[in-house]
């Protein structure tokens, strides 16, 4: 426990505040929302990857009985004249205009009171396209003559994207470059040079509550109910699109049935906003599971990594080239490209580094943030590469890592000096748990056993702001107003614990008010494991502010500061009855320095570092290529956990999600069509896919910059899973896979190719 926590609320493993509501089916989700007079929207989507829209025939759909309206982009422009949105680029039309750029792009919407009628009518819409050649591969997109967008349209809220305005004839939405030391010289002097290329596949978040948003027009106002991770952003962006002040747009969320980055920025909100204004009645759109796959995905990537190594097994230089397949609309891809670019060279102490990271437009469904913001793709490459070097040099992979590991006090690739990043501790704990120095059963017959590990790290996205309000009511009870969205990570509980610690009350008595932009203050978004740190600070400050005001009230009433007169009694004395409030306010924005445009260097790349590692023991059947993960160990540095048991569930949940991306999940495209947009053919891990043993551990650590020593945790356990398993497979059977997922077919093919 952190030295500053005294009231016993920090480090306390209480169950979720809303746990009882969830286990009895009473928890509130937008999925459940019904509004009086509401119509349902069903989206008609493009069947081609790239094409000019020749004609959209909605006559038959309109004629179907029960249909309220059929809407295309021409209608949308009646209420929003420039209907392009996006967090980084204003490139995405609410409904396709003139062109479609990916399969599944929304082209029209049917509105009907009965969602089944809307669906039936949607199937009657006919669209004709002049098909254009499509570009789907991120590396080809660099040089392809197929251009997805005629000109780049940066949104303007990120100053470092401004220079891209109007750029033509390119699919590169953003290029990030980092140069440190003398890479050329170091390669010239190297004893060994290693170069490998790794790839990752398109996958989807598949939150089990599919994306859902509703909009309700009012008297010059609009209320949006949405399963969103970023209500403050939704309000800003919808207000911008409408040309309204923010105070006429209200955005409310409830519990989210999972998010993982899928429900960030704007997804359906601009569409339902426009539809509600057109229809003059509430409109709700609930995506089906299959539609989610067309809405947002995780960036497929190609990563070429090259290292110079000296005679002592020290990495002296590293060159990284990463291509991110951002799909047809940028979403937050340029941020992924830059922020992940900071750490592409891995958690190693390397003096000479060159990183080039490119966000590419292609004719694939858009890619955005998915639990790790690009980091799992990078760790997959650099930790596979690390093992391959060690193996080639005949050095034990743990020993090789120890020789090169990045320690606190040393500069990382950006030049930022590392602090409170327990990379070495995470590695040590993995090594201990795996019993690395002990003999290991290598298996027998056709089943071979192997073990491997991997460690990754991440710079938190910065700079971002959180604001919190704490309201002490007349009876002394406490309401906490913050726009952090609880999508299962337990933020309500953690924030209540932080407020309770400051106020010295039980966390269970704090009521957390859910995001409602008319009520709860600004928060950048619930993403990138930022909430515990950023909102945690804001909540702590709001509670401290309230305490100061309680003390002032005491002074006002002549009550000695140390006395334990209850707050309700103080209010009674002040106002003569049960009345009044004390409102504490807190805000937080960390310090940060943007990287230099040419060198990518910065003295302050991040408010905090996240560190996660995985150890794996696998059994490979050499006759079938089948891999069984027998043991999966996740070790993370998350500072001092606010709620250790909730943190543990975050680790195991993140690791199993990444296990799916490692072993089985892949969106399959053929002839531009997506073949498996459903959970029957796109298989996420079920109970049968679990490793026999799963272990999670938080190392003993403190984040000195964090509230009560804590920092984020949502993404950490995803970092090391893929390379740890690939490294274990190599250890078992001596074949190296460089492309995800690690399916039995891929293993089998590699075994045959290696003559095993």
């Amino acid at each position, binding site marked *: 426990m952190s030295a500053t926590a005294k009231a016993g609320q920090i480090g306390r493993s209480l169950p979720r505040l809303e746990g009882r509501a969830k*286990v009895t089916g009473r928890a509130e989700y937008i999925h459940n929302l019904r509004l009086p007079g509401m119509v349902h929207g069903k989206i008609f989507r493009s069947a081609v990857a790239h094409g000019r829209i020749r004609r959209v025939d909605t006559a038959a759909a309109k004629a179907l009985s029960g249909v309220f309206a059929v809407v295309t982009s021409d209608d949308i422009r009646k209420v929003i004249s420039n209907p392009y949105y996006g967090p980084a680029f204003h490139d995405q039309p609410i409904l396709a205009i003139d062109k479609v750029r990916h399969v599944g792009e929304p082209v029209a919407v049917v509105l009907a009171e009965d969602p089944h009628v809307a669906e039936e009518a949607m199937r009657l819409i006919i669209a004709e396209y002049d098909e254009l050649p499509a570009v789907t591969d991120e590396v080809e997109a660099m040089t392809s003559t197929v251009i997805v967008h005629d000109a780049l349209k940066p949104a303007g809220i990120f100053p470092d994207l401004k220079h891209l305005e109007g750029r033509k004839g390119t699919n590169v939405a953003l290029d990030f470059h980092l140069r440190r030391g003398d890479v050329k010289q170091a390669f010239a002097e190297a004893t060994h040079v290693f170069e490998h290329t790794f790839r990752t596949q398109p996958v989807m978040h598949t939150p089990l509550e599919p994306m859902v948003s509703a909009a309700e027009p009012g008297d010059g106002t609009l209320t949006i109910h949405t399963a969103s991770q970023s209500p403050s952003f939704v309000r800003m962006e919808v207000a911008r699109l409408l040309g309204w002040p923010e105070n006429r747009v209200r955005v409310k969320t409830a519990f989210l049935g999972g998010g993982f980055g899928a429900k960030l920025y704007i997804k359906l909100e601009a569409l339902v906003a426009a539809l509600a204004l057109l229809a003059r009645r509430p409109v709700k759109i609930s995506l089906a599971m299959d539609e989610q796959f067309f809405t947002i995905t995780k960036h497929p990537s190609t990563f070429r990594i090259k290292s110079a190594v000296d005679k002592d097994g020290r990495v002296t230089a590293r060159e990284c080239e990463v291509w991110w397949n951002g799909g047809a609309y940028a979403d937050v891809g340029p941020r992924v490209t830059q922020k992940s670019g900071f750490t592409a060279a891995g958690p190693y102490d390397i003096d000479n580094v060159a990183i080039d990271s490119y966000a590419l437009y292609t004719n694939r469904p858009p890619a955005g943030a998915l639990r790790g913001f690009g980091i799992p793709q990078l760790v997959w490459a650099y930790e596979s590469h690390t093992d391959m070097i060690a193996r080639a040099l005949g050095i034990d992979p743990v020993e090789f890592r120890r020789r090169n590991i990045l320690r606190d006090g040393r500069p990382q690739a950006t030049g930022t000096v590392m602090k409170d990043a327990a990379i070495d501790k995470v590695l040590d704990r993995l090594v201990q748990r795996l019993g690395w120095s002990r003999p290991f059963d290598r298996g027998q017959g056709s089943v071979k056993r192997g073990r491997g590990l991997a460690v990754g790290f991440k710079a938190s996205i910065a700079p971002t702001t959180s604001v919190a309000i704490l309201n002490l009511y007349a009876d002394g009870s406490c309401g906490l107003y913050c726009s952090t969205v609880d999508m299962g990570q337990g933020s309500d509980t953690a924030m209540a614990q932080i407020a309770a610690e400051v106020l010295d009350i039980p966390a269970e008595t704090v009521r957390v008010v859910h995001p409602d932009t008319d009520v709860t203050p600004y928060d950048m978004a619930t993403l990138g494991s930022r909430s515990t740190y950023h909102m945690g600070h804001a909540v702590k400050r709001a509670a401290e502010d309230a305490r100061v005001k309680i003390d002032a009230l005491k002074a006002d009433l002549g009550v000695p500061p140390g006395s334990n007169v209850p707050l309700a009694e103080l209010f009674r004395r002040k106002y003569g009855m049960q009345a009044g409030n004390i409102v504490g306010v807190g805000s937080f924005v960390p310090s940060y320095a943007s990287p230099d445009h040419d060198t990518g260097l910065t003295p302050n790349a991040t408010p905090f570092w996240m560190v996660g590692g995985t150890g794996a023991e696998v059994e490979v059947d050499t006759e079938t290529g089948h891999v069984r993960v027998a043991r999966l160990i996740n070790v993370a540095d998350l500072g001092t956990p606010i709620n250790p048991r909730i943190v543990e569930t975050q680790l195991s949940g993140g690791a199993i999600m990444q296990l799916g991306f490692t072993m089985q999940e892949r969106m399959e495209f053929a002839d531009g069509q997506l073949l498996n947009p459903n959970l029957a053919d796109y298989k996420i891990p079920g109970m049968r896919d679990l490793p026999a043993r799963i272990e999670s551990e938080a190392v003993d650590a403190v984040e000195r910059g964090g509230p009560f020593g804590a920092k984020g945790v949502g993404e950490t356990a995803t970092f090391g899973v893929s390379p740890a398993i690939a490294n274990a497979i190599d250890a078992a059977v001596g074949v190296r896979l460089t492309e995800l997922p690690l399916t039995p077919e891929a293993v089998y093919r590699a075994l045959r190719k290696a003559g095993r």
Partner: protein
Amino acid sequence: MSTILSLTLNGRPRTDLVASNLLLVDYLRDVAGLAGTKQGCDGGECGCCTVLIDDEPQHACLTLAARCGGRRVETIEGIGTPGRLSQLQRAFHEKLGAQCGFCTPGMIMAAEALLRRNRHPDEAAIRAALSGNLCRCTGYVKIIEAVRTAAEGG
């Protein structure tokens, strides 16, 4: 076409006039107002809609409401309330078997069916019985722990 549907819902008899093609999940959520049962997928793939029909776990998204005439249908709302959790619900709550909670009602109903036919399942039996219920948040570790805890009577 409409049908008169008489069934026992969470222990209470009830009669409604329903469209013959109405799905049980829509009947429960829209007609009976029981939103605890969730719909996660496009049919039969996720288990979020699991309810008990005559003690058997069934997908409410693949079942016609009209086919439930004369049968006992149980949903998460019939198992316990926030003030009176069932043993299984308590275990899910205390062992953190629910994160976002969206899969939880279906998961608990599937586990309930298991415990009714096998009071003391081992871990393999738990994994097999719940293998049709997907969860994207928990990694299942705490769900298994919760069911074991309930099975052990604590």
